[in-house]
């Protein structure tokens, strides 16, 4: 790729050769922004029920705010959770950092910090994953927790008792304020 760029560039004066590495890093940041814009477009065009995500500000594409609604038929049905997504500069080769902003009582979510224990967000990350696939994974994680490696052991202990789990869930849950994420 670098060879292609250099071959495409017109003959330059020797003084401007210094800007070569800088322009390549800029094109790297530009390709990440391009991919994030592509993902945002894909997410808005697709009709995935119960998931949405947008950049927090128009100026910074690397910080997003998303919403996940619990799937019907699970204890999380009817509840909505806000999550924050931060993309590293070398995305998509490195996974984004995702946290629950709304307190979520779940075996694989830390109730205080909102940290999520999900393999595809850590060692199983792949460059082909996107925001949409992450949100869908999280939505399914709500209904099907991995109780083998719990981050919230209390929640894992009462998972099999849906009534007491629901009571604990509702005790911690805070409804979303109706502002745009």
């Amino acid at each position, binding site marked *: 790729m*670098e060879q*292609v760029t250099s071959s495409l560039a*017109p003959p330059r004066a020797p*003084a401007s050769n210094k800007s070569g590495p800088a322009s390549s890093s800029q094109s790297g940041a530009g*390709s990440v922004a*391009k991919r994030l814009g*592509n993902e945002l477009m894909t997410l808005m065009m697709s009709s995935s029920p119960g998931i949405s995500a947008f950049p927090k500000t128009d100026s910074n594409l690397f910080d997003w705010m998303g919403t996940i609604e619990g799937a019907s038929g699970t204890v999380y049905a009817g509840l909505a959770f806000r999550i924050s997504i931060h993309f590293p500069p070398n995305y998509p080769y490195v996974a984004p950092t995702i946290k629950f902003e709304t307190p979520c009582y779940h075996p694989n979510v830390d109730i205080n910090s909102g940290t999520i224990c999900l393999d595809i967000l850590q060692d199983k990350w*792949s460059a*082909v994953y996107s925001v949409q696939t992450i949100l869908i994974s999280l939505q399914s994680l709500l209904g099907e927790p991995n109780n083998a490696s719990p981050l919230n052991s209390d929640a894992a202990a009462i998972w099999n008792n849906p009534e007491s789990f629901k009571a604990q869930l509702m005790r911690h849950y805070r409804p979303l304020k109706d502002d745009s994420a």
Partner: protein
Amino acid sequence: MNALTYVDAPDQNLVCCICRMPFVDPCTNQTCSHTFCRQCIIQSLAHSPQCPIDRSFLRIEDIHSADPIIRSLVDELVVKCSNEPAGCSYTCQRQLLESHIKNDCLYVLVPCPAGGCAEEVLRKDQVGHLCSHTSVTCEDCETSVRYNELEMHRSTCLKRFYRCEDCETEQACSSRAAHASCCHAAQVRCPQEHHGCPWEGRRKDVSSHTTTCSYEAIKGFFAIQDAQKANLVNENTLLKQKAETLESQLRVAQYELRCVQSALGPWSRIPTSRSMSVLPPSSQLPTPLQHNRTSPSLSYMPPGDQASITQYFPDISFDDSQARSISSAEDQRVPERPNFPHSTQSISSRVSFGGASIQNWQSTGSLPIGSGSRPSQNVVAPLNLNTTLEGSLEGLRESIVTLSTSLDSLGRRSDIALTNETLRLNEEVTSLRVALHGLRMQVHTIMMDRNAQVTGQGPGFDPLFIQGDIQWLPNRSHMQNPPHNSITKL
């Protein structure tokens, strides 16, 4: 190249799953036959040695260029020129873009054609455009100057001439300003123009005009006048400032005066000419005070205020002449006061009525003592509004002191009189008791005689006779009372 903009939405089969754009230099894994951009899969393998799609183990040696048919499909996608933001609207197949940018695109930077210039210009500006680095030749002095410095050079070029409109001679551009100030044919006005000379003519005629100009003749006078006028203007400004300061001070003084007047009430008046001399020199200003200064005896208050003062002191007749006479001679004052409630006349009249109330007794008792000390019967000092407030207050204070001493002596005199009277009454009661006792003895003797007669005549008792005897008894006592009355009247 991955930042290119594609004209049509690309076929999803030709999109790399890592960068989400059509393949650039596509490569296919030999192990799992997935295709990526070469740059994308190399970067991904740097993070983890596995295929991003199926997580199968993958090394960089397993990557080979994709089939020529895939390469052709992506190379023939129509893209916009990468200089589109700069203004190029050219679109072509992706594989042809390189030659377009290299040879044709007008919006790429190329070295400046002018020799010795290190800067770059857009290709479209290269031909037929006089950039700042182009050298041009001055048509007058035939020296080579830079294009952007040509205007500046023209104004200073030594070999460039212009035609003066006044003297119709050729003059160098570089000395245009100098020539304009000394051109003999230029239109100028008289040097005394600002004093009113209407003359206007060519500069060479000025000297002949000044010999006849009447304004020029009195030039010295004008100079003196101008200097004096400037002095007067300065002085006027100073005086204006001074007057403003004085006016503000006057306003403050007037306000303070009103405050003092309202505080003084009826005593507020213009001081006499003697006290006016105490006033500070600033009173030379035309203040309202000065109007009354010529007539110091005139009261500052309007007549209506005097009437209101008499309401405060209704018992005192407010007459200047009377007040003056009171203050001058104290002895004459008492007879002149008809309203004085404790005058000797009223006391004597009350005694002649002979009322039985205790108060009258006290007043009659005090009479022989009080009549001998008339000067101590001081009254409330009349309010003399012709004096100052201090004088009036002083007089009132003295009156109060006098009144308190009078009241004190009066109380003491009353005590003495009461004691005397009580003693006298005691004596009188004693004498009365003695007289009554003698009378009772007489009556007893008479009754005894009567009883002896009745018992001597018989046991019958005539009640009518006794009744008449009883009726008679008070008459007898009445007959003996006159001595008591005479004592009482003593």
